[in-house]
């Protein structure tokens, strides 16, 4: 997979100077990042480095105090008028979130709804799709993630790997412009990781724009168009996977990779 920085392609997610504090803790210290259409950008780094927080800021699940986020060219979550910020209404914020799919470490499926219920909930109640059209699309997506026979099951009846694949299908049901993956295999038993990664590889091959926070170095190496190493709330290094894993420039990157790859 070629990994030149895609300067020639339209950016889908653009982040400029993002800062985030939790109390006195400065967890994002000025993040600049751009993800082009169809790119798969993998973020690696030690826990507590701010990777997940960055992802959550992109979806406004955390509110960054400073910086700009653009989704498909549109300034998201707040406007800037003469240097002052004006927060968007909840409705505007929800409308942007609906364009960006997110998959979580702990799946967060809705336990009171069947698999199909999970898939059609937002398309019907947020996008205003008809139930029949949403079900139709839901069946296609379940087939895509290999769970065509599970539409009437409840999440609790599924394995972790199956639940996570449903969660991916649920996010895709919104026809998102980009997908955010927040350590989606970290809570899985080792034997269930592969089935989820397979679905993600397939999604990448279909051209989905993806931002993937992961501890799966092989996935980052093989599927990533670009890999970002984060530490202490900063992007330390970003490059093509072959270079990050083959010849990292920064000492911190080398140290990190030694600890995770030696295991």
């Amino acid at each position: 997979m070629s990994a030149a920085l895609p300067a020639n392609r339209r950016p889908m997610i653009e982040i400029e100077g993002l800062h985030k504090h939790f109390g006195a803790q400065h967890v994002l210290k000025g993040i600049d990042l751009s993800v082009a259409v169809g790119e798969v950008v993998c973020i690696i780094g030690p826990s507590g480095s701010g990777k997940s927080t960055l992802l959550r800021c992109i979806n406004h699940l955390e509110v960054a105090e400073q910086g700009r986020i653009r989704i498909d060219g549109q300034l998201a979550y707040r406007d800037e008028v003469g240097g002052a910020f004006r927060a968007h209404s909840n409705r505007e914020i929800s409308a942007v979130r609906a364009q960006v799919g997110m998959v979580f470490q702990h799946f967060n499926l809705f336990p009171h709804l069947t698999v199909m219920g999970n898939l059609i909930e937002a398309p019907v109640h947020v996008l205003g799709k008809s139930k029949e059209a949403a079900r139709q699309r839901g069946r296609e997506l379940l087939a895509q993630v290999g769970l065509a026979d599970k539409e009437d099951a409840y999440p609790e009846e599924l394995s972790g790997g199956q639940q996570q694949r449903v969660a991916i299908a649920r996010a895709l049901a919104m026809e998102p412009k980009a997908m955010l993956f927040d350590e989606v295999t970290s809570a899985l038993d080792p034997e269930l990781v592969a089935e989820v990664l397979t679905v993600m590889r397939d999604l990448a091959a279909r051209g989905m724009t993806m931002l993937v926070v992961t501890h799966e170095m092989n996935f980052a190496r093989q599927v990533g168009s670009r890999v970002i190493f984060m530490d202490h709330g900063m992007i330390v290094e970003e490059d093509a996977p072959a270079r990050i894993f083959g010849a990292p420039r920064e000492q911190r990157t080398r140290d990190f990779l030694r600890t995770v790859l030696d295991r």
Partner: protein
Amino acid sequence: MEIFNLEIAIANFGPLLAGLLMTVELTLVVIVLSLVFALLVALGGISRFAPLRWLVKAYIEAIRGTPLLLQLVYVYYVLPEIGIRLNSFTAGVIALTLNYSAYISEVYRGGIQAIGRGQHDAAAALGMTGALAMRRIILPQAIRIVIPTLGNYFIGLFKDTALCSVVSIQEVVFTAQILAARNFQYFTLYTVVGIMYFAVSFPAARLVGYLERVTKSGYRRRRS
């Protein structure tokens, strides 16, 4: 000492049963009203609008800090002095609904807060507004959690309606008092009343136990 008089019991069974039906009717009306009102109170209590939260807090504390009996007589005897005249049934319904809603709203609140952050995150990430997520994702799960607790409160309510005898609602205790004042068969009449209460509460308690098992067993596909 009097003994249980079967003839008296049979002779008075009709009016007592009519009283029991009034007790049940009163209970059902208050259940329906307080299920709805308490939900509004609970949502007010977690509102982002601070004055609404304070109002809810004050209401809940006022209700919890005073006896139900006082609340009943207050609605029935004191409100008329400021021009609000209610018949006894309406007064009983209002007092019981206000009282139970205060407690039940706290039950709802506990249920809502028991739903994890992940559910809110997932709903938000799918573009659902807070109100939509509350209605479609949080409340259905929260209500399921609190069903057994609500059941126990409503069994308590069924018995508490006896207090409405003081505002002369013709429920079963008040009926027995009137009958006993005529024939002095306290032992028989009040024993029948006790059996009637038990005959309703006991199966209701079993039903709550069953609901508790069902709601704790998780969400499963119905086997057909």
